[in-house]
Every structure is written in structure tokens, then in C-alpha cells.
């Protein structure tokens, strides 16, 4: 397993930030998740990873001892303990790419200079690794969007992006688990619920999983989606 150069800084009184001196990559993702698993053993903290950072945040400020925890973090980051088992989870996400439910699809298609069929082919081809969850509960940050689909975010964000919207913003693609304001171009919708608080593990997709989009018809979408929405 690789080792990485990193810097540890404090983020206020009750959190520690580990910044890895390396760009996002599949190897770094594996390393971050392996270290996250080890760091979670520390008591009274929760651990968040992003592309190249790890946040260790106190969940009980009364018992937060910065020096003590920093020493243990160094020890964990420098240990050469083997990686956790490889994650083989691939979520197949059904998406309906149809202008009737994807408000930005036609405008997006003319801006990137592609027809809808080509957009679907390019968007459904890759298996996207999930680097982390952020922005909204259950929102996956994916890697691997085809560069022909890149398009800068909207100048003015939409106030209401519907739950289940599959969208593209800049070099990234993602799925909105809840209705939210957002500046990405909505090119499709999934009938799946990505975040369900009634489940012990509310997020369907987790960091380290992979996802692949599959195209479904409007009829299939209507059949699969909740009638009350």
C-alpha cells in the first residue's frame, strides 16, 4: 500500500484536518478509506473524508485532548497496516433521460453540441467510483465523467432541483437525494431513493462504492417512481 505525505492542522478547537499532498486518485481513495476505518477506532470522534483530506471531528468536546489525539493520528497514518477488503459494490442507478422530467436536458444538449442519444451513451458508459458523500445527505461525489459532457455550472442556480435529479456541473456528475437549490444541469431523473432515514444505514451509496447509470424509458420511470410525488 502506498504511503502519502500529509500535513495535520487544527480546524478550530475541536477538529483536526489531515491534508494529503496528492491529487484525487483511485489509490488515494483506497488509502483514505483504509485510514478512515482505523481512525474511527479513536473514541469520541467522527471521521469525514473528501478527495484528499480527512477530518477528525470531536463529538464530545468536553473530552477532546488535541495533543493526545494528534499523536495517535500520526501513528495510524504512518502504520503500514494492510488495506481493508476491496469494495466490489456497484450500484446500478436507473435514470430516465427525457426532457419531460429533465428540465435542462435540451438546453444542455445544445450547449455541449450533442444529441440526447449520445449524451445517454457517454453518461451510462463509465463505472464511476464514489469518492465521498457531501453537499446534501447522501449526495455522492463521483469521478470519471467523460470530458465531452463537461459544462460549466449555470450562471444562476435553480431554486428547486427535484429529488432524484441526475445532473452535470463543470467536470462532475451527481444525483440530488433531496430537493435543493442547485447550479448543475439536470439531464435525467432516477426513481431510486438515495437517502432513507428509516434505515439503520440511511445512505444507499457510500464512499468507496461504485455506480453505473442505466437508461430507462419514461414509462418505466413512471412505473418505478412513487405515485405521490
Amino acid at each position, binding site marked *: 500500500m502506498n504511503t502519502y505525505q500529509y500535513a495535520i492542522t487544527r480546524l478550530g478547537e475541536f477538529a483536526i484536518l489531515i491534508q494529503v499532498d496528492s491529487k484525487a486518485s483511485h489509490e488515494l481513495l483506497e488509502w483514505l478509506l483504509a485510514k478512515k476505518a482505523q481512525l474511527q477506532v479513536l473514541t469520541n470522534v467522527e471521521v469525514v473524508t473528501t478527495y484528499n483530506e480527512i477530518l477528525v471531528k470531536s463529538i464530545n468536546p468536553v473530552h477532546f485532548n488535541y495533543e493526545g489525539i494528534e499523536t495517535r493520528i500520526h501513528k495510524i497514518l504512518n502504520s503500514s497496516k494492510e488495506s481493508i477488503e476491496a469494495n466490489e459494490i456497484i450500484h446500478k442507478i436507473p435514470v430516465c433521460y427525457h426532457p419531460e422530467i429533465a428540465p435542462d436536458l435540451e438546453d444542455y444538449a445544445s450547449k455541449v453540441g450533442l444529441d440526447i442519444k449520445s449524451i445517454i451513451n457517454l453518461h451510462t458508459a463509465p463505472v464511476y467510483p464514489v469518492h465521498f458523500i457531501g*453537499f446534501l445527505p447522501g449526495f455522492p461525489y463521483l469521478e470519471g465523467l467523460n470530458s465531452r459532457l463537461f459544462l460549466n455550472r449555470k450562471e444562476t442556480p435553480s431554486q428547486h432541483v427535484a429529488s432524484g435529479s441526475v445532473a452535470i456541473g463543470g467536470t462532475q456528475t451527481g444525483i440530488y437525494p433531496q430537493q435543493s437549490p442547485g447550479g448543475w444541469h439536470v439531464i435525467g431523473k432516477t426513481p431510486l431513493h438515495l437517502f432513507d432515514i428509516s434505515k439503520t444505514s440511511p445512505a444507499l451509496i457510500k464512499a468507496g462504492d461504485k455506480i453505473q447509470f442505466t437508461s430507462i424509458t419514461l414509462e418505466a420511470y413512471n412505473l418505478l417512481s412513487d405515485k405521490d410525488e
Partner: protein
Amino acid sequence: MSKSIQILDKGFFTTVQDGGRYGYAAIGVPESGAMDRLAYTQANRLLNNHPNAAILECTLVGPKIRFNHPTYVVITGAHMDVTLDGTPVKIGVPTLAKASQILYTSKISRGTRCYIAFGGGLETATVLNSKSWYTPITPDNQIRNGATLSLGISTYGDRKGAHIKYKSAYLSAGRVHTIQAFRGPEYRLLTHSEQQLLAVPFTISKLWNRMAVQLQEPFDNKLKSIATSPVIPGTVQLTPSGKIIILMRDCQTTGGYPRILQIAQSSINILAQMQQGDGILLSVT
């Protein structure tokens, strides 16, 4: 049967909050919890409640509440006039309300958020380890008129609450509110003169809520957006267009703007009591 209260009028914006939602940041769930943790903690201590008991957080205009059973109540945080069937209730002093008495509150006169705690705490639904309201994690984003809220079992009558003299951090401060801040991860990317410019007074803009407080004055800078990275309440973001955004308790778990500062916990509590037009002076250490 458990004790309860009824919300006759919700006021301007009233929610249920506790000490925050922890353990779900890695799946994008905000921390939430009472904005002014000092006022929140003191309210529970005064009533001998569990330190994480749920209470009401009221913004700008307080609610009107009917007590269905004899209940101890205490008010902390921002200043407003409170009466119990016309009899004045002192801020920071536990008061016994009789069954069917009504608590009336005025507009908040100093500060922004006030806290109303009840003996035994509010027994509203726990979602992902917390009773703090944050949609879509919890169904409602504010209390509804007519809602009945259950209370836990109070130990205040048996054993007195903590002997603390209640004092609000915000109300005790002078006219200039100094906000203590530490250097954030991207602070070093600012030029020396930009760092100096952070020392001038700033004003709270019209954008202030439980997610963030945006400052009025533009701050010219050459920093680029960063790869999306972790943020927490108190993180100060600087946008390429020059907006300074101070993240508050309901903020997202990640963000793509440079994190120039991190506000001290005690100063987050002070910011929780501020609103549009209030001035701050950032003290960076």
C-alpha cells in the same frame, strides 16, 4: 400519561434543538443543534435537565405556549419580555407554570435567538441520534401552530438545578462584537495585505440563517475555488466573487470555497445572536 405543552402561536421561526447530530457527517448530514450553545447549555443546567435535552429555539419573535400540566420553564439567550398569564417571568430564572397557564412572549429586543427549556426536556422524535430539526432529516423545518409537544420527566422539583448565575454572552458584550477566529487551511494563500484587510469591521448582510451568515462588505481576492473539502460550523469561506460566508450549525459537511478562518466556539454563540446590520470585528490568532 406524560406531560405536554401546546404551541398556540409559533412566533416567527421556532424549532426544536438539542446538542447536535453527530456520527452522520460522512454521509452528508449536517451537525445542527442549538445555534447559541451557551444559552442552550445554561437553560438545561438551570432546570437540572439532561445536558443534551431538547428545547425550543425561537428567532426574532417568540411563541405563545399553553401548559397542559404543572411545568418548570426557563428562558435564556436573547432578551424579550415574557409573562405567565400577565405576570412577568425573569430571564434565566426557573419558573413553575401551572396547568392551563399561558406563556406570552414579546418580540426579541436584544439579540436574535432565545431558548425556552422545560423541566424534563422536549420528548419529540429522535432521528439519527438527535432531536434537532433539520429538513429533510426531520419532517418539519419549524413548529406548527397548535402542535402538542410531550415532555420528559423533570427532576427539578426533587433536586434544584445548578446554582449558576445566568448571563448572556451576547448581551454582556459591548457595541463592537469581537469574533475570535483561528487561521483556516487556506489562510496562507491570502496575500499579506489581504490578511491585513480582514482586520477592518464587517457588517452582517441580509443573508443570515441557521446555515450561514454572509458578510456585507465585498472582499477582493485572487483565491481560486478548492477541491471540495470538509467544512464544519464556524468555517469561514471566501468566494472568488469576494463574499465572506461564515458557516453556522446547519451547514453542509463539505464545500469548495477556500476556508480562510475558523471561528472559535464561543464566538459562534455570539454570531448566533446577531442579525442584519450588526457589526463584527474579526480577531485572528
